[in-house]
């Protein structure tokens, strides 16, 4: 199967799964921004995405996307280290025009993955997972809340400066990952030429920044609200 046996095939899977995850981020960011304007609206979305069959199917597809992206990332990285050989250069200089993120995608991926584990344990585990196991209320600090009360979760976690900073670091890692990942995915599919190269890179930067700002605004807004 050429998707597994050839380097371009493997990269194509990395590219498609990456674009899929990018689209998910866009959705997740849009949904979060709703919470800034109306907590009720946000909770409506949370209810919609609870233990309903379509939300569960969506979650499974999403999890598959993540797992494929991670496994392929690991596989490609190991192959590339092998291709690089055991002998390393004594003197290394990064050539002009090479983005820092492009050479550290794997490290950024590990950082992002670490935060995903934290994020899932804080939100998903107590929300969708709790609903699936039939819990009608979960503990959040000293209080009990409904697993569908997403706004309560945001308010609780983002009132803690430690989590706010950790989440902001996470968004920065995602920003770096996306600035390279977006245009690189397009390049791998082959939709690129001399004119579009710079356009895609520019679109990547803008897109990554929009995603970053969307997530960051929610986090910061709720922290400021918690101070008041």
């Amino acid at each position, binding site marked *: 199967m050429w998707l597994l046996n050839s*380097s371009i*095939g493997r990269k194509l899977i990395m590219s498609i799964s990456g674009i899929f995850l990018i689209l998910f981020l866009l959705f997740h960011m849009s949904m979060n921004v709703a919470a800034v304007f109306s907590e009720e609206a946000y909770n409506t979305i949370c209810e919609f995405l609870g233990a309903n069959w379509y939300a569960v199917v969506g979650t499974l597809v999403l999890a598959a996307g993540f797992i494929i992206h991670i496994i392929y990332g690991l596989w490609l990285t190991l192959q590339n280290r092998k*291709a690089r050989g055991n002998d390393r250069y004594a003197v290394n200089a990064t050539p002009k025009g090479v983005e820092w993120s*492009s050479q550290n995608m794997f490290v950024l991926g590990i950082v992002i993955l670490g935060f995903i584990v934290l994020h899932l344990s804080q939100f998903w585990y107590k929300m969708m997972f709790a609903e699936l196991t039939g819990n009608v209320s979960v503990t959040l600090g000293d209080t009990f809340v409904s697993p569908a009360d997403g706004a309560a979760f945001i308010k609780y976690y983002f009132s803690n400066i430690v989590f706010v900073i950790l989440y902001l670091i996470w968004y920065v890692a995602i920003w770096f990952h996306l600035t390279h990942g977006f*245009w690189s995915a397009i*390049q791998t599919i*082959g939709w690129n030429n001399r004119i579009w190269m710079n356009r895609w890179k520019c679109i990547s930067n803008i897109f990554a920044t929009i995603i970053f700002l969307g997530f960051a605004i929610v986090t910061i807004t709720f922290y400021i609200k918690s101070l008041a």
Partner: protein
Amino acid sequence: MDKTINITLKVWRQRGPQEKGAFQTYQLEGISVDSSFLEMLDILNEKLINEGQEPVVFDHDCREGICGMCSLYVNGHPHGPDEDVTTCQLHMRKFHDGETITIEPWRSAGFPVIRDLMVDRSAFDKIMQAGGYVSVNTGGVPDANSIPIPKPDADEAMESASCIGCGACVAACKNGSAMLFVSAKVSQFALLPQGRVEAARRAKAMLAKMDELGFGNCTNTGACEAECPKNVSITNIARLNRQFISAKLKD
């Protein structure tokens, strides 16, 4: 009288493919800034021979940036710190008095060291043999303009064909990938009507060979393009990806 500089060289010495190599330091005095980098190495080797030592082995041939034979990873850059030139076109005026210059061979699993600074780049020949040609014998030179080719296509093909196969892209790539080389060679044919006929087969065959020989997977860092002495663009890689994917989808 020319301006001269004194330099310290840290040169990778390795007696054979299986033996362990190490850096050796040499002092050179009174090197003219007008001499080329390889002339400087010639001076070093003459000195070593006169002292009864083994000269440093390095690849070179035309010394005018066409043949793709010279290599050398100089101070962290394939073909040295100057832009868009091969090592043989690099001059000592790019270095300053008292500088330590580190010279290493290309390092990549696909390019094993033969001796000192010389590496085995026959993997590129094998990739070319897998499909880097037009297989129909077309006889003598056809009349000019008997096959009309748009000027932009001709220019693009010419730029892709400027790849001299030196291997700097592989040397610069953190993934040891040969995609810039393969994509340039695929593009130079695919852009012209004579080569387009076999384009799909060529892309598949050359890429399969590249993978088989253990080169890495491209992650689009662009280090190859930045270090390429001929400025071959990574848009060639996009073209190869496009051709390979559409060829496989048609199968």
